């Protein structure tokens, strides 16, 4: 995305505008002004949207998070860190989320990597696009409906009923941490496969041949070349899945019953039921901060482990 240098505006003009040089009929100043006006008009709606519905709301919850709960619920202006100090009150939700988000992302990764590897390096060419489409489709279909499918299968009349036929009675599958983990892998697998696939697909096959020619075993070729060069994709997938899991609500609610509480559940409770908005805001801000940390760490790891090596190799 950053291939364009820090050039002045008129050099980057594309999208149907003539370059400044081919418009001698216009005085330089006037055409520059018109060009800038056009650019501003094109960007204005998106900029307005981003400011009103992303930046301002974020500022709003930041302000709320240092406020107090009004007696009737909602917000009362104040400047206090009491809400943040109160975070341990929801320690269970934090603990569950902080445990199941990385574990879930890791489980996704373990399932996703072989699939991405097969799609990128082993699958027959004519099958590749079809298989890729089959991965993308679940990602875009309703998570609610897909989670519901598992609720249906794991619920009392699903697998447990079938197992009862063969004599395994009273097996409880739904409303357990295991069910939540299963739902997580099911829901987020496509999101993990795609970035890994992309990084493996870009991989220069000659490196694999070179490694084999130089006497490396398949395993050390995989560890030294394939895995290492696909790390940016792995880290992208891992951090994306983990960040989305930090805010997950549906899966723990539907598959975890009341037992596995996530931060998402705590937020729904605080905003829609008990109406403690300042405390909810403090939790949301903490959640965003954790997400940012996850992104930064993932970015660091992928540049350190692969970025530098990659330059060495070339």
């Amino acid at each position, binding site marked *: 995305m950053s291939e364009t240098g820090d050039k002045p505006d008129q050099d980057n003009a594309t999208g149907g505008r003539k370059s400044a040089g*081919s418009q001698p009929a216009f005085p330089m100043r006037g055409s520059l002004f018109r060009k800038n006006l056009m650019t501003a008009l094109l*960007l204005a709606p998106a900029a307005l949207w*981003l400011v009103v519905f992303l930046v301002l709301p974020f500022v709003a919850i930041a302000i709320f998070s240092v406020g107090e709960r009004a007696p009737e619920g909602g*917000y009362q202006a104040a400047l206090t860190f009491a809400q943040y100090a109160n975070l341990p009150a929801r320690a269970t939700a934090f603990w569950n989320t902080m445990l199941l988000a990385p574990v879930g992302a890791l489980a996704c990764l373990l399932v996703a990597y072989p699939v991405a590897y097969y799609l990128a390096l082993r699958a027959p060419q004519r099958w590749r696009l079809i298989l890729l489409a089959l991965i993308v*489709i679940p990602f875009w279909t*309703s998570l609610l409906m897909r989670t519901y499918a598992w609720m249906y299968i794991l619920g009392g009349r699903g697998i447990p009923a079938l197992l009862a036929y063969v004599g395994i009675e009273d097996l409880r599958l739904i409303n357990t941490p295991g069910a939540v983990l299963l739902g997580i892998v099911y829901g987020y697998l496509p999101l993990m496969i795609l970035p890994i696939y992309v990084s493996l697909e870009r991989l220069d096959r000659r490196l694999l041949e070179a490694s084999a020619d130089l006497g490396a075993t398949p395993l050390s070729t995989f560890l030294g070349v394939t895995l290492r060069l696909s790390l940016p994709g792995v880290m992208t997938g891992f951090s994306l899945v983990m960040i989305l899991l930090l805010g997950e609500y549906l899966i723990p609610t539907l598959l975890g019953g009341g037992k596995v509480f996530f931060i998402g559940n705590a937020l729904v409770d605080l905003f829609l039921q008990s109406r403690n908005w300042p405390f909810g805001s403090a939790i949301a801000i903490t959640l965003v901060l954790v997400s940012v940390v996850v992104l930064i760490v993932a970015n660091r790891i992928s540049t350190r482990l692969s970025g530098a090596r990659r330059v060495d190799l070339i």
Partner: protein
Amino acid sequence: MRAFVVAVFAFLYLPIALVVLFSFNAGHHASEFTGFSVQWYGKALSNPFLVEALKNSLFIATTSALLAAFCGTAAALGLQRVGARTRALFDALLGAAIVVPGVVIGISTLVALVQLFAVVNPFLAELWPTDQPPRLSLGYGSIIAAHGLFSMALVTMIVGTRLASLDRNLVEASSDLYATPLTTFRSIVLPQIMPAVIAGFLLAFTFSFDDFIIAFFVAGAQTTLPIYVFASIRRGVTPEINAIATIVLCASVLLVLLAQWQLGRRKPSP
């Protein structure tokens, strides 16, 4: 490895297939398939609350996706014309709009809008000539705006990628041949980015139609289809939900396939 991949695909599709299968079950119970019937579809579609929720969802998804396609495409075009710093700022905000979990988007929009309405509504009441001033409240507008945020960022990214691979020579040739900027845009740029715009629209529609968590916070008194389905699931699993789920899944699959087809289309020769 092949066996593992096959197993993963089965894992991805079997649960959905099962829901579809049992939506045609004559009986009430999930454990046994007692015969073929479409009665649950009839029940679902004669439920007025469900039809209402479906209509709301269709309206919200269409509007937010149209707005997102329009603003996102404009933004992608505009981003081609700005310096690296402005571009980086936009990229960061657009990335945030996509990555920030829906829960956070939902509650922050809720908080900001409620606060905004608390300021604007008395003001409106003051200014309004009659006794019944309009009252801003959560509803269609807030869901459309909140869905549009993600969708717009998505469209900007998809169209931006297509623009980056656009053949600049054609644009230059066009202006060398004295085409006006508008003509160049209409006959060179637009045809080439159109598949990306359509794909962006379809994915935006799918996102909005499927989203539960953002709408859950900002819907106010309105109900969307996912909100309705969520509420019914919590009351208990019925075959009627299988029928709705089947309809929604089929619609999403169709839209995503259409979007992929659009994205995979070769650039039309000018």
